[in-house]
């Protein structure tokens, strides 16, 4: 009883509090995910030869959705200043490619899992967390998007999959590498990774 009452109450509060405010970040992610699904389900792009076209379309959406600058800075944190401006530029670029390639391939394997967005938390005025989950036949995978408002646009700067924050995961890796090596070595590792993919 309690469980059924709560969503209703939340719904009522949302409805009463006016349409604009609360739902913006959630709508942003939801709309993006819908765009992704539209591309994936597009019957015109069904055959395997369209894989590249699909990737190209997804890449555009991905750039709209993620704030790669925020992502890079948060993974490097205090190491950011060890990089020269030139290296920073290259890092952001390489890191984006690494992420893109890894996740594009994964997204392309998507079959008909259900994606549900169920909660939005405004953490501060310009940061929000959207909780969603992917439901497959054997399990549910919780995926949280952390979003930041920049220039009037909500963009994702961290993804938390099954309680593991991507930003933090990369941060630990980069920290470890930079405590034993130089930024140039890190960039070299990234270059190799991008090439190998």
């Amino acid at each position, binding site marked *: 009883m309690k469980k059924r009452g709560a969503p209703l109450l939340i719904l009522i509060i949302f409805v009463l509090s006016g349409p604009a405010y609360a739902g913006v970040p959630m709508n942003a992610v939801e709309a993006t995910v819908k765009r992704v699904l539209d591309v994936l389900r597009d019957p015109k792009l069904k055959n395997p030869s369209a894989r590249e076209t699909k990737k190209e379309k997804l890449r555009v959406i991905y750039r709209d959705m993620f704030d790669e600058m925020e992502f890079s800075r948060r993974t490097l944190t205090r190491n950011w200043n060890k990089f020269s401006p030139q290296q920073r530029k290259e890092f952001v670029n390489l890191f984006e490619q690494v992420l893109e390639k890894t996740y594009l391939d994964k997204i392309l394997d998507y079959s008909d899992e259900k994606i549900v967005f169920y909660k939005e938390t405004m953490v501060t005025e310009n940061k929000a967390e959207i909780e969603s989950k992917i439901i497959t036949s054997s399990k549910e995978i919780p995926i949280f998007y952390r979003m930041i408002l920049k220039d009037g646009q909500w963009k994702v700067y961290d993804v938390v999959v099954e309680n593991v924050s991507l930003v933090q995961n*990369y941060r630990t*890796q980069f920290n470890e590498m930079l405590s034993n090596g130089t930024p140039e070595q890190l960039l070299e590792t990234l270059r190799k990774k991008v090439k190998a993919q």
Partner: protein
Amino acid sequence: MKTYLSLIISFIILSAGCVCAPCPASVLMQTPADVSSPQAVLMTDAGDTPAQSSKQPDDAGADEYRDDENLDDDDDPFGEERVTIADPIEPFNRAMYHFNDKMYFWMLKPVAQGYKEVVPEPARVSVKNFFSNLGFPARFVSCLLQADFSGAATEVGRFTINTVWGIGGLLDPSANKELDLQKQNTDLGQTLGVYGVGHGFYIVWPFFGPSSPRDSITMAGDYFLYPPWYVQPWYASTGVTAYEAVNSTSLRIGEYESLKGAAIDPYVSMRDAYIQYRMKDVKARKARSVLFKNSGANNPAADTFQPEK
């Protein structure tokens, strides 16, 4: 055999106890800094933006790559603690990581893939449910020890319903919408975490994978509370456990590969994922506990913060 086991367990408990001892001190030292930093960050942010925009109004692109004055990276409003774990036996762990990696790609994965071809998914999910139902004693005891009585009750309800109406646990009718009795994802390692015992250090066990002295308790506890281990003779119980591993792997092929593929240093990535995952589990369990619910605010678990190297 029994004496060895108890020796191992007491070693684990001792080592976990020793390692976590200095942690609370560092927590206390760090907390004031953590508390003050968000404000400081906000102030620098506020001061920053107008100054820059007046300097270079039309060159916002290059501006992004400027030096970061915000060196305290703690402007994360999600109250995330920086989680790290000591790794004093890294060479051993890396060797074990590579061993497990090879075991997965050369043995477990091919077998699981073959099995996946033959057995349809609903059947494999049922097998998973069956074994998960047998995990009831361990979860029930953990819930009780954590003073999470509603969790313990949920587990009893689930076990009864799934065993009787779920054909011996093959189905999971109690998780559906009407009953909504969800599996309590808990174990003995988390119980110790709820009590405030720290991780200690990172260990990669052959076959079992990432762990810590504290979480190794889970393995030892499982040995006593998991019915399949009581199957006689010993090779039968090993066989059953191996089958369970193959079955659950068959439902998760690709997960490890994608984690590894996304990582720059897979070993460090695994270690971090493990520690983040466990820490949040313990936090979630703590929130459910009747006794330890409020202790989290003024006395964070010993593993929530460890100074970085």
